[in-house]
């Protein structure tokens, strides 16, 4: 079609064991915002990486403005007018905005930088698209929303006509998200095309002209915005009616296990991330913390699990203050923690699964004897049991952790933390980057922990996960809990609205 900026035809990409993209066809018209929705692992990221030049498709063709092309790498992609705004910014924090934009394309006289000449062009682009950023500011001094604009300017500067946004609102405040959508409008008004990857259905309906749903590597449907509802999209994404009916046995009210009082926590970057936060979790209860990333959730969990950087307030476990307790003591007293980044915090990658399954309890019987020797037999036996119980796919308990798939690594972490029989489980993004099968399994395990009387603090960027599992949901915004919902009252739209900072009643 003459109007098509971009056409992907029958793109197929396979990795060992999985077909990430299966004969995918997709097109983008000039002047449209085209949303690409799908679950984790559906194949969106792979498709975009192909477009961006990081992967080569096994078969299929790519056309830009009618011409068939091969994309050999990111430089090639941008040369063809395809620009990507990544979820995790690719910026140089100590450099200025101007420097960040021009690196790789610097204007120079015989090697000496002459980038002031490019300043005018950048300012023109900013004016034209309504994207304003202080050009001489250092990127590390800018708020996240402005940093994202620098990313956009980078690709506009290089002549991008096809702009891909990968989960751009994950790190933005509500106002910043609105600014972003306004920017989309400005960009498309100039004939550019935007591919908007998200799984936030509200945003899709707010801003998309067309919507394409991808599931398990295949395109399910491409449709115009008119007449589409969220349940429709959700059902296409998952393949069945979405409401997750989780078995929710009614439990007697338990004792308060975790109490957070007026907590103040400093973030490593220097500002106060948790600002007078209070909440409590009872035994046999799952308390879900909902909120846009960057509102203090990570720091909250970190403060309960490890405790560095606490500036004020208190954290009580079964009535006792944990503030002076070492990490070891917190674990001894029954706190378990599924970390948000399993590779960075949760596993010693070169060590065996068996050893990894003892982390946190490695100094206690049966894994360590009274004489401080390691009881290898106990370690292996316990590991074999856990591997079977949790269905962790590994050739043996001696396999090093770095050989396992992401889903199995996460299962191992979850298995380990639950096997410690904690009284409080801190679960931070427990199913991030995990395939559907493992996700379901982990959800079942968390519910099981609940029926066993454990208290669970669940932090997740996946609102559907929170809605399905939590007995109560607390919305965190700017370091405080601004509203709580009981399970029956928790409706997607209202919770989502709260996440943007809207307080329903004046008392919150």
């Amino acid at each position, binding site marked *: 079609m003459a109007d098509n900026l971009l056409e992907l035809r029958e793109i197929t990409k396979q990795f060992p064991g999985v077909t990430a993209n299966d004969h995918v066809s997709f097109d983008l018209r000039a002047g449209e915002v085209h949303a690409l929705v799908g679950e984790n692992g559906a194949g969106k990221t792979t498709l975009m990486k192909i477009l961006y030049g990081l992967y080569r498709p096994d078969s299929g063709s790519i056309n830009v403005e009618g011409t068939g092309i091969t994309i050999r790498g*990111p430089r090639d992609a941008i040369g063809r007018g395809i620009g990507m705004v990544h979820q995790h910014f*690719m910026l*140089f*924090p*100590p450099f200025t905005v101007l420097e960040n934009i021009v*690196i*790789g394309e610097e204007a*120079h006289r015989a*090697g000496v*930088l002459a980038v002031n000449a490019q300043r005018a062009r950048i300012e023109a682009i900013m004016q034209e698209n309504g994207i304003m950023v202080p050009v001489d500011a250092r990127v590390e001094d800018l708020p996240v929303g402005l940093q994202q604009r620098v990313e956009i300017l980078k690709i506009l500067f290089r002549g991008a006509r096809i702009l891909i946004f990968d989960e751009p609102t994950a790190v933005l405040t509500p106002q910043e998200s609105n600014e972003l959508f306004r920017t989309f409008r400005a960009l498309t008004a100039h004939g550019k095309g935007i591919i908007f990857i998200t799984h936030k259905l509200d945003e899709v309906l707010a801003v998309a002209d067309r919507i394409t749903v991808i599931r398990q590597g295949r395109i399910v449907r491409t449709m115009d915005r008119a007449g589409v509802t969220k349940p429709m999209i959700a059902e296409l994404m998952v393949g069945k009616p979405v409401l997750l009916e989780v078995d929710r046995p009614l439990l007697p009210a338990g004792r308060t296990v975790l109490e957070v009082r007026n907590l103040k926590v400093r973030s490593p970057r220097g500002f106060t991330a948790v600002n007078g936060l209070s909440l409590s979790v009872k035994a046999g209860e799952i308390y879900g913390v909902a909120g846009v990333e960057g509102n203090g959730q990570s720091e909250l969990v970190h403060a309960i699990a490890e405790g560095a950087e606490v500036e004020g307030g208190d954290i009580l476990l079964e009535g006792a203050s944990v503030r002076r307790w070492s990490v070891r003591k917190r674990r001894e007293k029954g706190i378990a923690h599924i970390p948000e980044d399993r590779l960075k915090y949760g596993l010693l990658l070169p060590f065996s699964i068996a050893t990894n399954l003892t982390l946190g309890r490695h100094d206690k019987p049966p894994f360590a004897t009274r004489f401080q020797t390691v009881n290898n037999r106990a370690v292996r036996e316990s590991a074999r049991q856990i591997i079977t119980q949790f269905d962790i796919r590994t050739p043996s308990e001696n396999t090093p952790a770095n050989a396992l798939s992401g889903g199995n690594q996460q299962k191992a972490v979850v298995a380990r933390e639950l096997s410690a029989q904690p009284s409080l489980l801190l679960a931070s993004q427990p199913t991030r980057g995990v395939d559907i099968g493992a996700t379901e399994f982990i959800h079942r395990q968390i519910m099981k922990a609940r029926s066993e009387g454990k208290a669970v603090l669940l932090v997740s960027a996946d609102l559907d996960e929170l809605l399905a599992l939590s007995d109560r949901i607390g919305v965190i915004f700017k370091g405080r809990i601004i509203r709580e919902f009981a399970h029956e009252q928790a409706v997607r739209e209202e919770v989502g609205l709260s996440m943007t900072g809207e307080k329903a009643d004046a008392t919150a």
Partner: protein
Amino acid sequence: MDISFLVYFLAKGLEISSPIAFAALGGVFSERAGVVNIALEGIMGVTTLTLVWGAITFQSVWIGLVVAVFTGILMSLIHAVVTITFKVDHVVSGVAINVFSIGLSRFLCQSFFGAETQSKINPYLFPKLLGINSLAFWLIPAVAIAAFVLYKTVFGLRLRSVGENPEAADTLGVNVTAMRYAGVLISGALCGIAGATLFADKWITNMVAGRGFIALAAVIFGRWDPTGAVLASLLFGYADTFRIIFESRIPIPGQFVQMFPYVLAVVVLAGIVGRSRAPAWDGRNYEKGED
């Protein structure tokens, strides 16, 4: 204190600081590109030897200098290949090269001059200016050039970007590998000059005496900035000069005075208030396409 003494002190201090300062400049370039180079010490040991050999063999100290710079580049090339291409830990590689350098310099000395621990005397020296090795004065333009290259050229900007965020630099089309190699090889070349400013008339084992490591302390103290690193080096150098000139008049036993530059380095490092910021990817290996 009279003027001639002051001039002598300033000049001597410059001479003594210059090996540390040139090595520190090299350290800055390497680390700004993201490669930690603790082999400065060992490389200096070898370049000083090859300077002497080159000067004697070709009967010109300037050719000796060329040989020294060339040797520095070669030695640092080993570090570059091992860390950038084979992705070995930077400190491990640096230590290995230091060990290799000790052995290599002894071997070369024995092969060139017949004795393992000291070379023949080299009669071809750099011209003297104000009573000191005039090569030391090259430091002043060297700092200016280094700062200019690092902050005002395309090359410098890209080099720094690679040290900050190699992934981002890669996607923008900067050749991460080439920039890292460049940083390391520049540090090698500067080590060549550093070796030449040490002493040019004879090579003895252990003559570098830790200056390469003090240079690293100067890089940290100078916050990875060329001017800062050189100023820090001058601090160490002048402190040492002070010690040398007044040694006989200080009532402390000689060995304690000898300790002074090293103790100073430790004190300086310990006293740095707050963590100064190394380039974000300094010391970490980057693998393309790592997901």
